[in-house]
C-alpha cells in the first residue's frame, strides 16, 4: 500500500537519491542537497502557514511505499507562479487571415510573450520511479495535489498550469531554442537554462526575449515541429493531466517550446468530481460485493493533516458515508466519522 503525504525532513536522503536520476527539463527537483533541503523546509512552512491569499507557498508531496517506507515519487504545487515577478510564457495565438478580393482564407499561428499565467497555481516536480510508471499510484500522486487544492481552495488560484519539458535533440540542444531564444541570448540552450536557473520570472526575460509576436510559419521546420511537443519522459504526466481535464495548445514554454497545460478548476475532474463524505469503518470488506467496486482516490479532509490513498469501494454518488477498512483510516490518520474527499480514479 502507498500513501501520498507532505514531505518531511527525514525524506531528504531519499529525495537526494531521486534527484540524482537524470531528468530533462527544468521543472524537476533541485539537484543539490542544500536546495532540496530548502524546498523541504519551504513545503513544511507552507503546510503549516495560515494562508489568506495564495502567495509564495510551495507544497511538496511524496509517494511513500508503506511496505518498505521507500519514497517512490514526488509532486509539487506552487500556490502562485511568478510570485516574485511575472511568469512568462508564449501564448499560441491564431490569426485568421481572410481576403475577400483574393478569396483566400487561412490561419497563421503567432507566439506572443505573455504574462497571463502569473498568479496561476503551478504543478511541478512530478516524478515517479520506474516501478510505479503507469500505475494507479502515479495517478494518485499527480491528483493528490489537486485534492489538496479542493480541500484548501483559499491556498490556490482558480486556475492551474503545468509546464512539461520540451523535446531536445541528441546533443541536449533544443531546436525551438535555436530558432528563437538563441538569437537574443546568444548562447546554447543548456547555458541559458543554467544562467536563468530554470526560472521563468526574471527581469532578463523582458530585456532579452522578443517583444513582438513570432509568426510561426517563419520558424524553421524542426522548431515548428518542437512546439508543444513533450519530451518522452513527460508522457505519463501528460496523459494523467489531459485525462484530468488540462488543455494543451494555448501556451508553450519560452525556452524549449514544451507544452504548458492549463485549466480552470471548474474543468478539472478532481474539482468537479470530488465528493465530501464521512468515513466509517467497513465491518466486512466483502459485504458490498453486490455492485462492482469503484477505485477512488481518498484523502483526509483537513488541510493540516493531508494524506491520500487509493481505495476500492461502492459508488459513492448516492451515499453519505464511505466505508473504509480500518487500515486505510489509520494510514489517512483519521478516525471513524471524520470527513474525507473522494474522487474516482
Amino acid at each position: 500500500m502507498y500513501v501520498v503525504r507532505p514531505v518531511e525532513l527525514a525524506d531528504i536522503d531519499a529525495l537526494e537519491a531521486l534527484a540524482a536520476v537524470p531528468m530533462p527539463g527544468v521543472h524537476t527537483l533541485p539537484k543539490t542537497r542544500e536546495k532540496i533541503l530548502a524546498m523541504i523546509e519551504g513545503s513544511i512552512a507552507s503546510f503549516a502557514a495560515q494562508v489568506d491569499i495564495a502567495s509564495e507557498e510551495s507544497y511538496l508531496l511524496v509517494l511513500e511505499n508503506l511496505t518498505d517506507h521507500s519514497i517512490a515519487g514526488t509532486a509539487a504545487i506552487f500556490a502562485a507562479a511568478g510570485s516574485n515577478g511575472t511568469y512568462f510564457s508564449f501564448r499560441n495565438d491564431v490569426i485568421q487571415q481572410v481576403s475577400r478580393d483574393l478569396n483566400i482564407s487561412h490561419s497563421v499561428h503567432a507566439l506572443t510573450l505573455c504574462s497571463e499565467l502569473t498568479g496561476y497555481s503551478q504543478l511541478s516536480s512530478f516524478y515517479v520511479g520506474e516501478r510505479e510508471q503507469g500505475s494507479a499510484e502515479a495517478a494518485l500522486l499527480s491528483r493528490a495535489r489537486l485534492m489538496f487544492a479542493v480541500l484548501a481552495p483559499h491556498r490556490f488560484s482558480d486556475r492551474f498550469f503545468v509546464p512539461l519539458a520540451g523535446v531536445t535533440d541528441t546533443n541536449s540542444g533544443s531546436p525551438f531554442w535555436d530558432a528563437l531564444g538563441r538569437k537574443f541570448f546568444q548562447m546554447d540552450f543548456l547555458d541559458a537554462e543554467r544562467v536563468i536557473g530554470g526560472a521563468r520570472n526574471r527581469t532578463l526575460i523582458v530585456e532579452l526575449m522578443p517583444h513582438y509576436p513570432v509568426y510561426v510559419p517563419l520558424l524553421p521546420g524542426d522548431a515548428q515541429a518542437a512546439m508543444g511537443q513533450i519530451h518522452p519522459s513527460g508522457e505519463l504526466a501528460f496523459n494523467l493531466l489531459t485525462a484530468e481535464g488540462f488543455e494543451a495548445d494555448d501556451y508553450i514554454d519560452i525556452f524549449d517550446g514544451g507544452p504548458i497545460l492549463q485549466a480552470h478548476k471548474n474543468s478539472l475532474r478532481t474539482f468537479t468530481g470530488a465528493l465530501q463524505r464521512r468515513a466509517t469503518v467497513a465491518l466486512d470488506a466483502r459485504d458490498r460485493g453486490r455492485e462492482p467496486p469503484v477505485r477512488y482516490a481518498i484523502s483526509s479532509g483537513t488541510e493540516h493533516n493531508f494524506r491520500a490513498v487509493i481505495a476500492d469501494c461502492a459508488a459513492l454518488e448516492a451515499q453519505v458515508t464511505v466505508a473504509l477498512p480500518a487500515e486505510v483510516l489509520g494510514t489517512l490518520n483519521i478516525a471513524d466519522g471524520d470527513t474525507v474527499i473522494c474522487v474516482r480514479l
Partner: protein
Amino acid sequence: MLVVRAIQADDLDALYVMATQVGSGMTTLKPDMKMMGDRLDIAVASFAETIAPEKRDYMFVMEDTDTGRLAGVCAIKGAVGLNEPFYNYRIGTLVHSSREIDVFTRMETLYLSNDLTGSTELCSLFLHPDYRTGNNGKLLSKSRFLFIAQFPHLFTEKLIAEMRGYQEENGRSPFYEGLGRHFFKMDFDHVDALTAVGKKSFIAELMPRQPLYVAYLPDDAQEVIGKVHTSTAPARRLLEQEGLYFEGYVDIFDAGPVLQARVSELRAMRDSVLAQVGAAAVPDAACATLPEPEPGPEPVLVSNTALHDFRMILSQTAPVNGAVALSAAEQDALRCADGDAVRTLSLNSRKYPHV
C-alpha cells in the same frame, strides 16, 4: 536631336507603340489603351495645372526630333499613397540587452509602414533599347531633377524612387519566398501583377502587422534586403549621384530599396543655375569660368522654364557668367530665343571642390 519634353495629348499612339516593346519588368507602362489614355489625361492636366498638386503625374517623353519617334518616357508623381495605402517595410533597430548576464544583442527589425505617404515619386522610367547609348539614359533620368529644380513649389519636401528588388536569374525572389509567400500563399508574379493593377487591399488583409525581426528570415532572404535587381543597379547609381539615399525603406514583396531625398538637398537644387540665352556678357577668360576649370567639354542639361511646355536637351555649351550660347537648333528644340531664361546643370556631379 533628343528632346525630353512634357507629354502631349497626341502622344498616346506613339506611347502605346513603345509600351508594346517594354518587357515584363515595367509594371506601370502596360500596353493598355484605356489605362494609358487615363494616365495621359492626368499628365496633360498636371502640366496645365488644372488638378491639385498632389494628384498630378508629370510624364515626360524623350523625342527623337529627327524622326519624331518616342525614345523613352519617365514621370514624377505629385504624391503617392493618397488614394490607396502605400506600403513599405522600414528597417529599424531593436537592442536586447541584459546587464545582469552581460548580453547585448542588436537586432534589425522590419516594420510595416505607410510612412512615405504623400511623398513625390520618381517613376516609370523607360528607354527604348535602340537608344540605350551614350548619355541618353542620364539625360532621360536626370531631366526630372531639372524640372523639380525649376518648379520646387510643386512638390513635397520628400522625394522617393522605388527600385526593383533582387531576383535570382530564374526570377525567384528570395525575400518573397522567405516572407511573403507564407502569408499570401501565391506566386510572386501573381502578387506583383495584383499590385500593378492597383488591387492592394489584400495587403492590409494578409500582411503580418507586427514588427518582424530580420533574424527570423532565412539567410538568403536577409541578404537581399535593400539590394536592387542586377538590371537596376545603373539606375540606382544615377539617382544616388543626384542626392538620393537608401534610408531603410524597402518594398514589402521583394525588399528592393526605396531611395529618398529632401528636395532642398538635391544636387539640382544646389548646383543648377539660371542663365540667359546668348553670348556671355563679360568674356573675361582669366577668371570668369567656374572655380575649377574642366579639362574637356562638360555636357550640360539645359531646359526652358515653361511648365506647360517643359523641354530639355543635353548641350556641350556651358554657361559663362550667367549666359549660355545655345545654337539655333538647340534654341529651337527648347522653343526659346536669345534673352530667354534657361536652367542649366552639369550632367555629371562633381565632388566638393574645396575639400
